[in-house]
């Protein structure tokens, strides 16, 4: 087109110069004048960049729209341009793009981080739970044998969830493409449920998130979870009872991706005919994982744990008691062996009963008391002690003390009738009394205070009040005589017995002389108790 006018152009000017009469030129002008003017105008427009730009600017938007409708080549053509433009923009001033993207970048990062964290927390929980169970060991072995990942095996065996139904939903229309449910599941109007599910998602998105691009991924309802996975053309929704493992999300994703790649054509051309999607059934059936009776299983596990805990507790308690008994028994034997005056010859126990036998000095500590002290029930112990005399220093001193005490308490000083005067013959006996008292003082154990009760007696004749006084005088006479010999007065305590304590009752008169006497009692008091 550009060649034709340029070939023609010279001819009018040629004609104007070459033809003297100008007739031809005029004829030409008459015949093609208007067309020529328009051609010139067109030429001018084509040559003028400014005008051409203006022309193009008027139609460029419509042209792009038209082309976009026809195919996607414009996108491909513009792609490098856009990329380059973005690159230049960033290189020149990163601030512009940064502030443009700012409102969405936060949301994107948050979503991605939250997603990653949620997955991490879930998997940590699951890992912790599983890594300590016998079951997990079994699964690991099975995984190795089957050449599968542990996650897959765990997913198959996890008994705490059950995928009850799976919906494959056409994203745009909300129509149900395919549906799988457990055989025993009563499914009512899955196509209506599918539609409503889509509507509810729209509703939630419109009402709460405000922005596009965010999708409902989980709906929780009591023990049911609805897990939704979104693809560009279809949505996969699984109704899960119990606690689904995080691996299930990955499985949903993979299944949906496979549906998208295997059924790309039916999905993009979908106009309501769902027969093409019958072939997705095996994929959907594969998602119906988990097993039933999840709650019961949980319960029995809980019961098992409780029972095991009870058994362990019982065993522990038994062991504790056994150990405590044993240690008490050992301590008792040690005590008995170290106790002066006790010689343990045999000690054994069988079926909770204890037997002890040995020798025992009667002066030694009562073994019964030692058994009681040890915490062992004395009923459980049979003991046989043969008496013997220990040569232990503690006992010989005590034994001497006792014999001195007995001897002193046997001593009697006699008085003539109605007299508190010691006769000379009785004074000799006083030497023995004195010797006994001195010995007692020597042999008394540390911390013991010895009191010698000096008891005055009379015969039954005479008035009782006179007898009382007389018996007092007799006791005091003895105390005086002994203190004269150098024994501290503090050791003595006088008691006036009158005639209340005769040697023997109803004795003949000649023997009643014997009642006129002073006798002794030795009282051992703890030091300080006065």
């Amino acid at each position, binding site marked *: 087109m550009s060649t034709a006018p340029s070939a023609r152009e010279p001819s009018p000017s040629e004609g104007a110069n070459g033809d003297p009469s100008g007739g031809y030129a005029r004829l030409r002008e008459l015949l093609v004048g208007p067309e020529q003017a328009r051609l010139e105008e067109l030429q001018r427009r084509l040559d003028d960049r400014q005008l051409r730009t203006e022309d193009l600017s008027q139609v460029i938007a419509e042209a792009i729209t038209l082309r976009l409708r026809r195919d996607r080549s414009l996108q491909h053509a513009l792609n490098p341009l856009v990329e380059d433009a973005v690159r230049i923009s960033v290189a020149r001033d990163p601030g512009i793009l940064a502030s443009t993207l700012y409102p969405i970048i936060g949301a994107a990062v948050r979503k991605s981080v939250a997603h990653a964290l949620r997955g991490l927390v879930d998997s940590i929980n699951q890992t912790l739970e599983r890594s300590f169970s016998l079951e997990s060991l079994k699964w690991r072995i099975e995984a190795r044998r089957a050449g599968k990942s542990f996650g897959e095996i765990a997913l198959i065996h996890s008994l705490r969830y059950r995928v009850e139904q799976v919906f494959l939903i056409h994203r745009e229309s909300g129509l149900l493409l395919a549906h799988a449910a457990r055989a025993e599941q009563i499914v009512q109007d899955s196509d*209506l449920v599918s539609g*409503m599910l889509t509507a509810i998602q*729209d509703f939630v998105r419109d009402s709460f998130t405000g922005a596009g691009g965010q999708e409902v991924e989980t709906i929780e309802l009591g023990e049911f979870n609805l897990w939704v996975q979104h693809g560009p053309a279809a949505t996969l929704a699984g109704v899960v009872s119990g606690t689904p493992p995080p691996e299930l999300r990955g499985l949903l994703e993979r299944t949906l991706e496979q549906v998208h790649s295997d059924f790309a054509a039916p999905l993009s051309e979908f106009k*309501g*005919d769902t027969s093409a999607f019958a072939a997705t059934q095996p994929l959907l059936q594969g998602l119906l994982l988990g097993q039933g009776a999840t709650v019961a299983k949980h319960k029995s596990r809980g019961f098992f744990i409780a029972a095991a805990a009870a058994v362990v507790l019982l065993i522990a308690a038994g062991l504790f008691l056994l150990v405590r008994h044993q240690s008490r028994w050992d301590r008792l034997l040690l005590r008995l062996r170290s106790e002066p005056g006790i010689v343990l010859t045999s000690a054994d126990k069988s079926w909770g009963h204890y037997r002890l036998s040995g020798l025992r000095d009667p002066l030694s500590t009562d073994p019964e008391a030692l058994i009681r002290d040890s915490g062992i029930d004395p009923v459980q112990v049979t003991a046989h002690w043969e008496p013997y005399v220990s040569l232990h220093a503690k006992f010989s001193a005590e034994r001497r003390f006792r014999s001195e005490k007995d001897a002193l308490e046997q001593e009697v000083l006699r008085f003539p009738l109605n007299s508190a005067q010691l006769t000379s013959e009785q004074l000799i006996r006083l030497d023995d009394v004195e010797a006994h008292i001195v010995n007692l003082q020597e042999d008394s154990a540390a911390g013991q205070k010895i009191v010698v009760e000096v008891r005055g007696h009379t015969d039954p004749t005479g008035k009782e009040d006179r007898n009382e006084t007389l018996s007092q005088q007799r006791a005091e006479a003895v105390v005086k005589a002994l203190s004269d010999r150098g024994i501290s007065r503090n050791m003595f305590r006088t008691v006036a017995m009158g005639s209340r304590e005769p040697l023997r009752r109803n004795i003949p008169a000649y023997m009643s002389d014997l009642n006129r006497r002073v006798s002794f009692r030795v009282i051992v008091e703890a030091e300080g108790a006065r």
Partner: protein
Amino acid sequence: MIQKKICMVGAFGVGKTSLVARFVHSIFSEKYQTTVGVKIDKKVVQSRGEEVTLVLWDLAGEDALTTVKPAQIKGASGYILVVDGLRRQTLEAARDLQRRVTEVVGNAPFVCVLNKADVRETWEVQPADLEPLAAQRWTLVETSAKTGAGVEHLFQALADAMMQEHHATDSTTGAVAG
């Protein structure tokens, strides 16, 4: 099995829900419409010897506060415009709605329903109002929620139109593929 999503739209209070109540299978209560903004019902019809399941999205009526959301209309193969014969402005609303729905779903088949046919003599909508619509080849059906007249016909007409479209596009895609 053929499934088609259809929407039912109209101004507030034109009687959409009660119009179809007796003719559709429903498992959701009317509360859904006021909360979620849509209630989904099902209607199975025979068209050209095929069984077609119509999944009916009964959208909340338009008023000052609620407008039809494009997300709810998306993917619909057909729709029903409901007009209350007693109120002329509902007809205007329907024309407006038709324009907006077309923006989302393109030239999908639809049926315009003139409801409350049982009290036709008191209608505010006059035949003259309907002439321009007929000229635009709108399918007009008179119905009555009270008597149930015209409702079956409404679904049948819409299903037939959609199935015609279905097979027409089938053959075109077939031609393109061939």
